[in-house]
């Protein structure tokens, strides 16, 4: 009940974190440790030919032996580029099939291109990838991605890197209520209460990067996010009281008042 299961593997943490935008690898690692995250996203990029190849690499700071590495397709605008990138990622990670698919549609708002996303998902699932997919918060297309065989569906809460929080909780609820695979909010969280709201809605997890990396104190924010996720999950499981808009209900006894 308290574990998140993705593609048959159980995780204690429901917080997934990115590794972008940190000052250096030491800060990246310290923030990940404070977050308690077990699943960590990375991007795949060309090596800089001609530059010093002996520089430390991200995977030295965040080794696959200690974390589940989730390679992404950030920056890809076509299904073909995303598929090629993830084939390279699978080779890079010794055949590890778990991946994060994202196919973008517009460089200014980074909204996903859903037709290309669906196309890439079909190919990747056929090739044996375990696809966690960034997508629009559209209940119909989220269901399509589940039916294709994606192992987790990850609708945006608001634009990537915007920190605008959960802008359409009602869509997320529709998606969650219909889902048979984990629903993970990916993108848009700005602070710990946003993560809590996502979890209270019934999301299975939250994936974030900028909210931690661009906090004034990333390590402290990572710790706050961990607590926010846990608080939201517990509140969801506990079941919140009903909202009563038209009648107050005192918490203290209505009898035995002095002078009565």
């Amino acid at each position, binding site marked *: 009940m308290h574990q998140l299961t993705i593609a048959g593997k159980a995780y204690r943490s429901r917080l997934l974190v*990115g*590794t*972008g*935008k*940190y000052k250096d690898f030491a800060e*990246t690692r310290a923030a990940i440790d404070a977050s308690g995250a077990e699943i960590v*996203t*990375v*991007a*795949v*990029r*060309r*090596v800089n*030919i001609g530059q*010093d*190849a*002996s520089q430390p*690499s*991200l*995977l030295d700071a965040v080794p696959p032996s200690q974390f589940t*590495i989730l*390679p*992404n397709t*950030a920056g890809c605008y076509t299904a073909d580029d995303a598929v*090629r990138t993830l*084939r*390279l*990622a*699978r*080779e*890079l*990670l010794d055949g590890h099939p778990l991946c994060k698919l994202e196919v973008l549609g517009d460089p200014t708002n980074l909204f996903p291109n859903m037709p290309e996303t669906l196309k890439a998902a079909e190919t990747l699932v056929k090739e044996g990838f375990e696809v966690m997919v960034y997508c629009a918060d559209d209940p119909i297309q989220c269901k399509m991605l589940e039916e294709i065989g994606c192992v987790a569906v990850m609708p945006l809460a608001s634009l*990537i*890197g915007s920190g605008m929080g959960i802008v359409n909780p009602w869509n997320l609820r529709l998606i969650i209520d219909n889902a048979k695979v984990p629903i993970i909010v990916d*993108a848009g969280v700005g602070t710990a209460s946003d993560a809590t709201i996502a979890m209270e809605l019934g999301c299975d997890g939250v*994936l*974030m*990067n*900028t909210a931690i990396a661009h906090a004034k104190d990333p390590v402290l924010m990572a710790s706050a996010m961990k607590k926010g996720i846990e608080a939201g999950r517990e509140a969801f499981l506990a079941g919140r009281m009903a909202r009563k808009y038209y009648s107050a209900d005192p918490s203290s006894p209505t009898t035995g008042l002095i002078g009565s």
Partner: protein
Amino acid sequence: MPAMPELKINGESRHFPDPLTVAGLIEQLGYAGKRIAVERNGEIVPKSQHAATALVAGDQLEIVVAVGGG
């Protein structure tokens, strides 16, 4: 093997004096033993095939690493 005038590596043309394999190329670039992945003309070259894969003129290679991302 014929001499090898030119390869395209990560979008850049590079000249090599002698024929070489994928493993030889990685060695020359300083990435031997590093966690990288190689695509040749659109197809993955698995690590197990690096030593056996001879490169020919005009080959297009992509060599990638993991970097920070979200």
